[in-house]
């Protein structure tokens, strides 16, 4: 059948509304059943022309889909790696026949994606499917993964989630956006044709993000991953909070990205490329042009010359036009001058390409960019200032830098906190490049081997969160319950419980509030000690100290970091009796067992010291000629709410993972057994770690969780605690986005569940450090 036929059938209906497509769920019988439920019609292309319509899935569809996905997972995950790889490769040849169809459909739906990029993705991930058990031992697929994308997401970003999930042996439910729905349905069909077991890939279409929450609610789903714009991502975070399903977010759409031109750049090429990318009709990111002051005149003259003759760019709607007009007016009031190739049409959804000269990082049109072909231009004086301006936005998606100076290029690439750096190029993407959105641009890594771990879990550890339905909770009231007041019993000064200090900014101190909490002895028979009752202000002080030293710590050579960790291990060895005694009184463990735990802790710290120079990036196998590099980078400041189990061992394990990879850390000892952690402060004090790198603040767990969750600098939180705490964090840590590792522990039975901290398997350590880093890819095209 041909497109001609397609025209014959659909031609008469082009302006009418018709159903071309309905919701498809692959049934176990390999029969594609169509479910016509109630219809929502969406306009896909230019206004007035419907390409096709999709159906909104309802509850029945979701549960049917989820159970079919579960069956699909069973069928797909039992296949051998070779068989899975073969299916992916077979799709490559299927795409060879139908590639034109796929790319034309993408074009029609405004999610353009050439079949060659799809083929590259398939080939890349088929090789990972083939080698999963060889190269990634001890990891196992998650189960059913829901891949959610927003309406404006491209097919490439969608497949960057779907293919690794499939390659690792998961089954996938795609919840596509408007643009990607038809191509996703078509690809699902082609996949089944390539031999994918029924149910391993499912597509559920709907009209808005509420469908995703309903999908996530289904108990068969093990993981939800999202790609698209920020707002929908936040909505999804809030909607899925408390469902007990981990969510990873890549808000790749709508980020502000710097386009930095240094004076040592090939200015002509830089200007040509910025014009090409900034004034496209469909832009995924907002570029901000940053130009070194010494060449700003020649850049502006070239911009004027090269933009002359450009025509108006279509906007998405008349509403966008209003926003653009308002932004321009505001910019002009603030003294910005415009470069426009033609006069502005009085009305209509179009606008000429416009450069706004005289922008500053604080300008409203830079902070909240309008959805049109606008390009703010800022100037900077020195290289360092260029980097500072480039890092000014809350986003950390990507940056393009232009210079012929190799040293400057690499230095700038390292100092920009973004996921991808393109040197003398822009918008280059390939599945082999591991990219984590820095700052507010993501909570997970996509692409490369590093991106695969999003869809895997350790064979030895159970899923971290039990499935639950969200409880209705008042988020503003969480963690505000007052701790019981302590009336010290000073009758006998000799046996009075000892007050412990907390550790903030390298100093042992009391909490800012001055209050203390009583630490109960294991049987609950009496007060063992007093620990400070920390709060928001303590966290603030700790983070302030941490961000001062963390960049310097990260820049230290790996061997210097290793030395510090070795000496920390030595310090622990020197104080082993004290620490063991604190475990003994706190948990009621026998002295022998307590000493064994300390012993393990010393070994663990030495392990982490050795890992310092083993966590490394490398050169990536890009299909184009050039140099692609990947770097693991520290997340920044981590908040850790420590688990009850093995209070000392778990603490040094997490502490080691965090600082070996270059992070600073704010730790909250578990409320139940805080003493070992507080006793560890004396070890920290005698170590040569920079003051402020490690902070220990004791206090009520919920109260401290709230303080960590609401601090905007903390980039990640590792949490062991209650289900409500998990729900609170998932709901709250959305702006800026925090990377969450949540583990729900039952209050009473902390011992037999959860992680086995005594294991020292390489993959156990690997999981730890992978959670503590984010990845950056640098692309330098060369001959």
């Amino acid at each position, binding site marked *: 059948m041909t497109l001609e036929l397609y025209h014959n059938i659909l031609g008469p209906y082009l302006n009418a509304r018709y159903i071309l497509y*309905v919701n498809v769920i692959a049934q176990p019988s390999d029969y594609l059943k169509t479910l016509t439920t109630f219809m929502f019609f969406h306009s896909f292309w230019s206004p007035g022309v419907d390409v096709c319509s999709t159906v909104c899935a309802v509850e029945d569809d979701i549960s049917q889909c989820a159970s079919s996905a579960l069956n699909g997972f069973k069928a797909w995950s039992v296949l051998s790696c070779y068989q899975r790889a073969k299916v992916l490769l077979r799709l490559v040849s299927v795409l060879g026949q139908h590639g034109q169809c796929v790319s034309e459909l993408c074009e029609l739906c405004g999610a353009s994606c050439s079949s060659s990029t799809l083929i590259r993705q398939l080939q890349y991930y088929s090789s990972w499917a083939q080698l999963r058990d060889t190269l990634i031992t001890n990891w196992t697929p998650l189960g059913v993964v829901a891949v959610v994308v927003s309406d404006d997401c491209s097919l490439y970003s969608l497949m960057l989630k779907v293919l690794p999930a499939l390659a690792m042996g998961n089954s996938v439910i795609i919840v596509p956006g408007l643009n990607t729905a038809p191509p996703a349905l078509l690809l699902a069909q082609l996949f089944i044709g390539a031999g994918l077991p029924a149910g391993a890939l499912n597509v559920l279409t709907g009209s808005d993000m509420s469908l995703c929450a309903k999908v996530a609610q289904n108990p068969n789903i093990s993981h939800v991953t999202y790609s698209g714009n920020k707002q929908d991502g936040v909505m999804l975070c809030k909607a899925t909070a408390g469902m007990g399903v981990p969510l990873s977010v890549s808000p790749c759409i709508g980020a502000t990205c710097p386009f930095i031109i240094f004076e040592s750049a090939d200015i002509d090429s830089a200007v040509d490329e910025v014009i090409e990318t900034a004034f496209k009709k469909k832009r995924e990111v907002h570029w901000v042009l940053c130009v070194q002051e010494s060449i700003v005149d020649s850049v502006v003259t070239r911009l004027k010359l090269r933009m002359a003759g450009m025509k108006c760019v279509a906007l998405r709607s008349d509403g966008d036009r209003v926003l653009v007009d308002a932004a321009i007016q505001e910019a002009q009031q603030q003294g910005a001058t415009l470069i426009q190739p033609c006069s502005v049409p009085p009305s209509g959804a179009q606008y000429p390409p416009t450069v706004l000269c005289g922008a500053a990082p604080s300008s409203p049109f830079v902070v909240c960019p309008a959805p049109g072909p606008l390009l703010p231009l800022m100037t900077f004086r020195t290289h360092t200032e260029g980097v500072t301006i480039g890092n000014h936005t809350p986003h950390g998606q990507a940056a393009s830098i232009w210079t012929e100076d190799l040293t400057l290029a690499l230095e700038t690439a390292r100092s920009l906190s973004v996921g991808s750096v393109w040197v003398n190029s822009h918008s280059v993407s390939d599945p082999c490049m591991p990219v984590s959105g820095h700052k507010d641009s993501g909570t997970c890594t996509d692409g490369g081997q590093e991106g695969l771990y999003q869809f895997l879990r350790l064979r030895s550890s159970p899923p971290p969160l039990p499935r639950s339905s969200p409880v209705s909770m008042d988020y503003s009231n969480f963690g505000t319950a007052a701790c019981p007041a302590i009336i010290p019993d000073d009758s006998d000064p000799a046996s009075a419980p000892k007050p412990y200090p907390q550790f903030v900014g390298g100093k042992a101190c009391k909490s800012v509030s001055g209050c203390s909490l009583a630490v109960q002895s294991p049987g609950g028979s009496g007060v063992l000690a007093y620990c400070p009752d920390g709060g928001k202000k303590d966290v603030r002080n700790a983070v302030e100290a941490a961000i001062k030293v963390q960049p310097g710590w990260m820049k230290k050579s790996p061997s210097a970091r290793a030395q510090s960790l070795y000496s920390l291990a030595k310090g622990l060895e020197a104080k082993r009796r004290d620490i063991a005694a604190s475990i003994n009184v706190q948990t009621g463990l026998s002295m022998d067992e307590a000493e064994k735990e300390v012993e393990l802790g010393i070994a663990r710290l030495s392990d982490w010291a050795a890992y310092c120079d083993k966590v490394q990036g490398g050169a990536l196998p890009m299909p184009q000629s050039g140099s692609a590099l990947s770097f693991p980078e520290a997340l920044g400041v981590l908040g850790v709410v420590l688990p009850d189990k093995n209070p000392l061992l778990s603490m040094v394990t997490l502490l080691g993972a965090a600082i070996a990879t270059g992070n600073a850390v704010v730790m909250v000892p578990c409320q139940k057994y805080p003493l070992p952690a507080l006793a560890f402060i004396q070890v920290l004090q005698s170590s040569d770690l920079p003051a402020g790198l490690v902070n220990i603040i004791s206090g009520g767990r919920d109260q401290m969780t709230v303080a960590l969750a609401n601090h905007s600098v903390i980039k990640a939180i590792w949490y062991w605690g209650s289900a409500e705490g998990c729900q609170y964090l998932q709901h709250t840590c959305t702006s800026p986005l925090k990377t969450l590792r949540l583990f729900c522990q039952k209050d009473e039975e902390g011992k037999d569940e959860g992680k086995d901290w005594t294991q020292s398997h390489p993959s156990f350590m690997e999981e730890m450090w992978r959670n503590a880093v984010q990845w950056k890819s640098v692309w330098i095209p060369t001959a």
Partner: protein
Amino acid sequence: MAARNPGMKLDLEWVSKVRVNTQAVLKRAQHIQGQKIPKKQWQAAWLLKAVTCIDLTTLAGDDTPSNIHRLCLKAVQPIRYDLLKKMDMHNKGVTTAAVCVYPSRVGEAVITLKAANSSLPVASVATGFPAGQTPLETRLQEVRMAVAHGASEIDIVINRKLALAGQWEAMYDEIHQFREACGDAHMKTILAIGELGTFTNIYKASLVAMMAGSDFIKTSTGKEVVNATYPVAIVMVRAIRDYYLFTGQKVGFKPAGGIRTAQESLLWFTLIKEELGNDWLCPHLFRLGASSLLADIERQVGFQHIQYISIPYFPAYKYVSFNFFFFFYRSTIM
């Protein structure tokens, strides 16, 4: 003809600041090569335009008066009269831009053209073409003699030794002397890009040649291994643009060597239109140095014309499998 480029003092600081990123230029060239070229009657029009920009060239050891004679007459009547008449272009004076020959053949070309009542300029290569490895004095003398024989355009080659060694001052002086020797004759400077090594060097050589007063810069002699390529052209036209921004002088561009098909000539126009704008799309700022291109253009114009009148335009359907959609379309309306 428009005002000539008077040249300027050598600005070494400008030359030293030049940076060219090879990969970005290659990408740009690919982008331009991917552009759609005009079709149907528009293509025919562009091809005729291309004809008017051709420097019809013969530079061979076996050039004799008889083939120079044929060349000149072809330059005067480049497209068959009946074809031009069908397009109603027979009285628009479609000729090539010039003929280009060796200095010793200039006299014969001038006589032939005069006999044919044509004012077509005769261009002569000079200065030890193609290698430029003769003493400066003989090179200057060659220019003077070519002008004396009636050449009104001189294609000089630069001294590659100076360019490769970065002796821009010396190169500037030489070209400046050639320019003086040319007198009223227009000077086109051949950079021999195939022998300059890097794009940055090509850019610098272009700038120096323009500062010394070249009216055109030309890619290559046609005798090197690498001749006119699109990436090199992008580098050179960017230098022309840069020079225009700085001085307000428009310098012409002449790709030469290896341009053989009508398709290629259209791409060259696309490139110039994209990079320099419409101002440069005329014979006094853009030339194509070619010998066999004209024959292909003539063939294409003839073919175009026949196709244009005999076959009405019929949109080509793209035949793609769409059974998937068809299936669901059917199943839902049932």
